[in-house]
């Protein structure tokens, strides 16, 4: 027990287009929400998950910036970058800070400010997650990379586009409850299928939105956490793995091998298996990523990632609810912040929000087109 690491505070800022707020405003807001939630007001270190502040707002050095303006004092503070997987990667660094005994209290903040630039520039910046010289140079956008994988998946497993379009519907179903979500409304399957095509076969409503947001969580040892609460949320399994940067170099284009590897590590560390999971937060940046994630983390056979979704098992009340606060699709996908939002949302669900009685949950955060994937398993510690 003394070795365990727990999450004792969560602060999830409203996701959206925040014209009036800067990156530092967003980060500070979520940090102080997390302080308020935890009952403490100082930490020993800060890890910032962020993909591309240098490109989006011409600001690097986020560790010092945020520690300074959030009033954290002269603590160690660094930025962790792994494209859209930055938040999950920062969380793992924060975990190690506590686990190693180096720090008592660690703050992990994911933040991204994407809407200061025009959409075509955003598209270009996001493409930096791919191989700039040999993928993006040739005009492939990030959406296009996912579209390439999706068409191949449909071809190899004889899956229809309409079947994959169920995932945005599931994520949106949970969004009205989610106070911090960008789009708090339900959508229909028809609206996904009939929305404008961005890169065929992907439509606009298959894709998570561009937005601003910041999320913070505070970590400490389970022993310390029990001074604040009787039901701490324990980090019981973590895994991070990488794959080839380019989609073209994968031996199996339709397998996220980093999801296979990262989830195996997390299952091994926790002593749990897929069937022990009550709820999931999966990285539904694009509908195809949901199906691949469910398969490659061991919840469905290859090619059958849409099966449970189509049977209704991923809604609340089903066998395996997913994306209980709207997922990337409806909550929004402020890229470097997303992984921390997922952890925070998992904590909310495990603490009990009146909708599910879940003891264990898993969050999966994908960087790029699957070149970095982190998996985190949390357990209610009562």
């Amino acid at each position, binding site marked *: 027990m003394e070795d365990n690491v727990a999450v004792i505070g969560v602060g999830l800022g409203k996701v959206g287009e925040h014209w009036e707020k800067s990156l530092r405003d967003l980060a500070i807001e979520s940090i102080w929400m997390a302080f308020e939630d935890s009952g403490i007001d100082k930490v020993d270190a800060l890890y910032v998950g962020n993909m591309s502040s240098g490109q989006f707002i011409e600001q690097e050095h986020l560790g010092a910036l945020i520690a300074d303006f959030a009033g954290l004092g002269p603590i160690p503070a660094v930025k962790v970058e792994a494209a859209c997987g930055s938040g999950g990667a920062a969380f793992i660094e924060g975990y190690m800070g506590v686990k190693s005994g180096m720090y008592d209290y660690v703050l992990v903040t994911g933040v991204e400010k994407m809407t200061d630039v*025009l959409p075509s520039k955003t598209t270009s910046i996001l493409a930096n997650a791919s191989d700039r*010289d040999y993928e993006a*140079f040739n*005009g492939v956008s990030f959406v296009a990379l996912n579209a*390439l994988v999706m068409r191949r998946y449909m071809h190899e497993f004889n899956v229809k586009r309409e079947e994959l379009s169920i995932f945005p519907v599931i994520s949106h179903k949970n969004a009205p409850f989610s106070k911090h979500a960008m789009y708090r409304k339900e959508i229909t399957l028809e609206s996904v299928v009939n929305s404008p095509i961005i890169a*065929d076969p992907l439509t606009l409503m298959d894709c998570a939105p561009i937005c601003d947001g910041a999320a913070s969580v505070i970590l400490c040892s389970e022993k310390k956490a029990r001074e604040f609460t009787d039901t701490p949320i324990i980090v019981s399994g973590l895994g991070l793995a990488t794959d*080839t940067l380019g989609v*073209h170099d994968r031996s199996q284009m339709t397998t996220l091998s980093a999801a296979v590897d990262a989830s195996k590590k997390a299952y091994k560390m926790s002593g749990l298996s897929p069937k022990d999971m009550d709820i999931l937060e999966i990285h539904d940046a694009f509908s195809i990523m949901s199906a691949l994630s469910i398969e490659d983390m061991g919840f469905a056979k290859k090619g059958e990632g849409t099966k449970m979704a189509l049977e209704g098992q991923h809604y609340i009340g089903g066998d395996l609810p997913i994306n209980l606060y709207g997922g990337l699709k409806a909550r929004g996908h402020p890229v470097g912040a997303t992984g921390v939002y997922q952890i925070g949302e998992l904590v909310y669900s495990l603490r009990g929000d009146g909708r599910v009685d879940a003891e264990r949950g898993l969050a999966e955060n994908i960087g790029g087109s699957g070149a970095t994937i982190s998996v985190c398993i949390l357990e209610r510690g009562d």
Partner: protein
Amino acid sequence: MDVPRHWREQIKRYRLMGSKCRDCGKLSYPYRTVCPKCRSRNYEDYQFIGRGKILTFTNINSPPKEHKYNLPYAVALVELMEGPVITAQITDARAEELEIGMEVEMVTRKIMEYNDDGIICYGYKFRPIVEYSHP
């Protein structure tokens, strides 16, 4: 695209120059100085013929800013006949003509022009194989 960054890749792009592992024979495009199969660092240049088939493709409606003057365009993953898979635009074909398995060949084309430095970047695209008839 800054000038040196494109300049140093010219040969690799114009001649489809990748690498071959001298120990296990593994071919790579783009070139790799560490073999992804056997980790050998013993490699040599290897020029690909430039023929292959489409594994998957998409038509882009919402391009990155440096490619917005090229709309509409298709990109594909092309499996070269020697084995490696390459990401490239498909040219000289209408979107509705493309299909998985279609045989394509490399051509040298302009990739982007209207970038910040004003340099014209050429590179490879692929097109459906053209059968020439000689009179």
